[in-house]
């Protein structure tokens, strides 16, 4: 996560230095989105259609984005934080309310998703969903078959049960370096409320993770894509779309690596990446135009087909590739959807306990 972010900031500094200054009358929108998260032809189409130049910059961790936003004066017009980060940022006064009269495409949005994003952004006043997905288990089917005698994973038990994870130690296990994604999963596995802020519950989750810690090779939030695709590891707890990217890279590489993704039956976390406009954005009109364009059914479907995540746009579903739409790990069926949970942002005190716990888990001390 960090190493990629460093790369990106290095390249973005380079690009900033060598981007010629535009004329004052040029219409510009500065977009700051996750890396590998859009079909770049969409940006070109937008510029062709509206004449607005898009300065597209990327990050790969919510923390980096948040720090820039909290410091103020980021210069970005559209940013894409995840739901629980967005909620806290709204509270801090980072964003401005969206002028919904400028967003006619809002009528295309999917109420199943909007209801859930409203937990972070009441009334969806500040943000519009871009993509959403789950936190689940990505795995190398052949290696898991060899180690466990089955290539079907459907439960968190494979990860949280020390006996089972021990068998996967040698072929390699990676985990997201993100307490907000992993601690709730541990709570859910233990039958506790994934949103619990009780120090006792968090301590139980910590214990459960410390028990399997010896079998985890690395905590990292982006390296697992390549590691899975190359066959270097056999299991990763990660974000759905990243695992699908690994699956596709493995198919392209033709090395015989097959990747599966499982939404565990106990339930998995659902996350949402939301487009929002910072309060001090220099080009608000252009930002609204950009967000509205992204809500065009054909456009967002094209993006989903490229990044392999589900989007929150109901009208786009007729343009989404059938294979993607029918894949229950991307667009879960109603029964699975019932078991997915969302996680609220932590208050500062709980955040401190969580981070402290996480450091203990990750470093093993």
């Amino acid at each position, binding site marked *: 996560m960090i*190493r990629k972010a460093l790369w990106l900031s290095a390249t973005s500094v380079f690009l900033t230095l060598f981007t010629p200054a535009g004329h004052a009358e040029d219409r510009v929108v500065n977009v700051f989105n996750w890396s590998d998260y859009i079909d770049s032809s969409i940006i070109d189409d937008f510029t062709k259609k509206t004449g607005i130049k898009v300065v597209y910059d990327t990050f790969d961790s919510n923390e980096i984005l*948040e720090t820039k936003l909290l410091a103020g004066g980021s210069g970005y017009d559209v940013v894409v934080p995840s739901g629980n980060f967005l909620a806290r940022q709204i509270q*801090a006064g980072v964003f401005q309310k969206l002028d919904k009269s400028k967003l006619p495409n809002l009528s295309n949005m999917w109420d199943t998703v909007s209801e859930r994003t409203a937990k972070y952004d009441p009334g969806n006043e500040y943000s519009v969903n871009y993509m959403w997905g789950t936190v689940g288990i990505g795995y190398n089917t052949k290696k898991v078959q060899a180690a466990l005698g089955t290539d079907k994973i459907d439960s968190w038990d494979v990860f949280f049960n020390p006996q089972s994870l021990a068998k996967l130690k040698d072929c390699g296990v990676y985990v997201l370096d993100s307490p907000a994604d992993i601690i709730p999963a541990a709570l859910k596995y233990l039958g506790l409320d994934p949103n619990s802020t009780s120090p006792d519950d968090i301590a139980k989750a910590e214990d459960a993770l410390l028990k399997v810690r010896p079998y985890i090779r690395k905590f990292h939030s982006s390296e697992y894509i390549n590691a899975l695709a190359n066959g270097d590891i056999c299991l990763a707890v990660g974000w759905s779309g990243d695992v699908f990217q690994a699956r596709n890279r493995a198919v392209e590489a033709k090395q015989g690596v097959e990747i599966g993704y499982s939404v565990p039956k106990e339930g998995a976390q659902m996350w949402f990446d939301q487009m929002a406009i910072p309060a001090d954005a220099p080009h608000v009109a252009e930002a609204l135009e950009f967000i509205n364009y992204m809500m065009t059914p054909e456009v967002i479907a094209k993006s989903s087909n490229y990044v392999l995540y589900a989007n929150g746009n109901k009208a786009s579903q007729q343009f989404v590739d059938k294979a993607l739409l029918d894949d229950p790990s991307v667009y879960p069926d109603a029964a699975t959807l019932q078991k997915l949970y969302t996680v609220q942002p932590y208050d500062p005190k709980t955040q401190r306990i969580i981070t402290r716990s996480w450091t203990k888990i990750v470093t093993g001390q």
Partner: protein
Amino acid sequence: MSNIAITDAAAAPAAAKPFLTRLAAGFVNRLVIIVPYVWLLFFFLIPFIIVFKISLSQTAIAMPPYTPVLDFSDGLSGFFGGFRELNLDNYAWLTQDALYFKAYVTSLVIAAISTVLTLIVGYPIAYGMARAPATVRPTLLMLVILPFWTSFLIRVYAWIGILKPEGLLNQLLLSLHIIDQPLVILNTYTAIFIGIVYSYLPFMVLPLYSSLEKMDYSLIEAAKDLGCPPTAAFWKITFPLSLPGVIAGCLLVFIPAVGEFVIPDLLGGSQTLMIGKTLWNEFFANRDWPVSSAVAVILLLLLTVPIMLFQQAQAKAQEQGK
């Protein structure tokens, strides 16, 4: 101290000159001294005061994420009123959790080991350069500086490709039948040491080279003539004479290595607990700017106080030497 000495020396011959010229010369001299002080003021003292002030504040869900923010939006009384809210709570917090202490100690130990390793690797290189024919020396010097032409980040990345289990080093050793199982180096402390030694080597070699190059080699010849074996001559003459270079090189490696973040993150494993990583966590994951500022202030004191004491001791020793 040395700056004042320079002014005095420059001012002395000026005494014979007319008053105005003397005044102008004094002004120019003073201006020359002021430049580094202004530099320090703007790029060290003021940023430090800002960080120190944040370390006395409390976190808040706001922009920026701490309170009080000292500004003049409420006029002067608002500005001074904010001071009453500052306190040392964050420093107390650092002492309550063993995590920070462990992280400081780990960082100091890793930096110390790396510095010694860099010295061991760097000394022969610098010595060889200093003893090389004068015509080759500029080329050798160039070769030491050459790696800086590539981005630091890319060079550290390259080490991932070299050290990983299926990387270049393991492939080479396996094909030469020196090992039959790939070595696990990446994501261990060994990888961190390799990374730091590699990245900081020029900072060690350059000061060593400059002190070794100035050395009078007739001293060695004299020692040889008097029957001193080469090893003893090295320890009795060469090494003591190169000591200023050794100290400068070690400080240049040790100080940045303590706060190193990129190398442990890229090459070290998840279990590495260094202060740079702790600071990153506090700042980015916890959004706790005040605590991370406190961590940074302590780190700075940890580094500057011993160095200042060391310099004072050296100055004293020099005076006594006279």
